[in-house]
């Protein structure tokens, strides 16, 4: 099937079978490598993308479901450099290996869009489905809380 998917603002036409999963099509056919292949069952959050206006697990979406829709990955978040949240995460050493980072950046960005001043509980809840095995979450949560307060004082 020929699918038309807008990815990070660019219109793509891509050939895919109904059984092809969106995560694999993004990575292998379109070369968008920020969504990572982790658990492949929706538990780890490393394949998180924004489909239209909400984060989803791209390992649990068929590529054909995205036909006619818009995908945003961390590459498309901000074309003028890092977002404020990403800057805070860098400054806070939020990540070590970085495997979870694209998913966590998107999940936290979605949280801040809907809830500009989240509590610690809100941040923990929003990131509960994004596993990080390096930094123990604290520097990530702190960065999101700082972004919520409009940046570090």
């Amino acid at each position, binding site marked *: 099937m020929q699918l038309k998917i807008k990815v990070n603002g660019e219109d793509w036409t891509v050939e895919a079978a109904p059984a092809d999963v969106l995560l694999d099509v993004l990575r292998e056919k379109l070369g968008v490598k920020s969504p990572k292949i982790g658990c492949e069952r929706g538990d780890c*959050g490393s394949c998180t993308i924004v489909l239209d206006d909400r984060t989803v697990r791209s390992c649990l979406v068929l590529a054909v479901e995205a036909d006619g829709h818009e995908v945003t990955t961390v590459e498309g978040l901000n074309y003028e450099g890092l977002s404020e949240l990403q800057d805070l995460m860098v400054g806070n050493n939020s990540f070590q290996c970085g495997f979870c980072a694209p998913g966590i950046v998107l999940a936290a960005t979605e949280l801040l869009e809907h809830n500009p001043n989240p509590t610690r509980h809100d941040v923990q809840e*929003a990131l509960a489905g994004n596993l990080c095995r390096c930094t123990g979450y604290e520097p990530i949560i702190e960065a999101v809380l700082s972004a919520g307060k409009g940046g570090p004082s």
Partner: protein
Amino acid sequence: MVIAHEFDYRRPASLAEAIDALSEHPGSVRVLAGGTDLVAWLRDDAVAPDLVVDIKDVPGLGDITVEDGVLSIGSLVTFTELIESELVAAHIPLFAEMAETVASTGIRNRATMVGNICSAVPSCDTGPVLLVFDTTVHVVGPAGERSIDINDWFVGLRQTALADDEVVTRVTINLRDHGGIYVKLMRYAGEDLAQAAVAIAAYADHEYRVAFGAVAPTPLRSTRIEEALNGKALGDTVVADAVAMVGGEISPITDMRASAEYRTRMTEVMLERGLWAATERLSGAGPEHGVRLI
């Protein structure tokens, strides 16, 4: 890991087209809404349909409405939409409380309440909360529309009363004043399936509805416990008598997430705490929604 077998895909633009498509491959067709279960099952080869019918472009299935005392939740309504709905918050805040315990935001943005009762896994969070209300599942097939009482919906492990060529359009709930609660035991308070769950609705004149999740092959309503409670004001003895019946009502398994003994004991504790909390909520007090009792 890829999905190993091929299938056809349709995304019909109307209910009539969807029903036609479902009849194309009798016995080997699956309806796709949020897909958070279906795509995982396709990957695992747990299901291998010839055809997948994606209903996301069918108009009219994504609404939450209240009309003449009936709350209607369309089959495309996601858990996130339940959490954000003002109608749900005003009429059955218990549904939002339940939805907040389901998986993670990225799943809740996609997964639907109706998809959850169609998957019908033992730990499905929507089963117990729908069982404590007068809930009807509305389905459409080649023979027309049919309504299924939620009490007749769950017929076995991952099995429902839905026929292969039918599709659910919505669930409706008759609204009554109630105090409701959903108590869910998880290994940690982030993202987990229920190890055991209890839903309770307390109605006026000491009427109660009690349902359990993850402790039987299907979500389970206990009319025996309800009968033991009905007509009685809650007190220590009444609650203790109800709690003593739990072991005879449920049939939990031991697996990697919990032992049968642990599930049984915790279900007793959750029933006790839940009965008090639901009754307090009926009187306008009780714990704030979202507070975890366990």
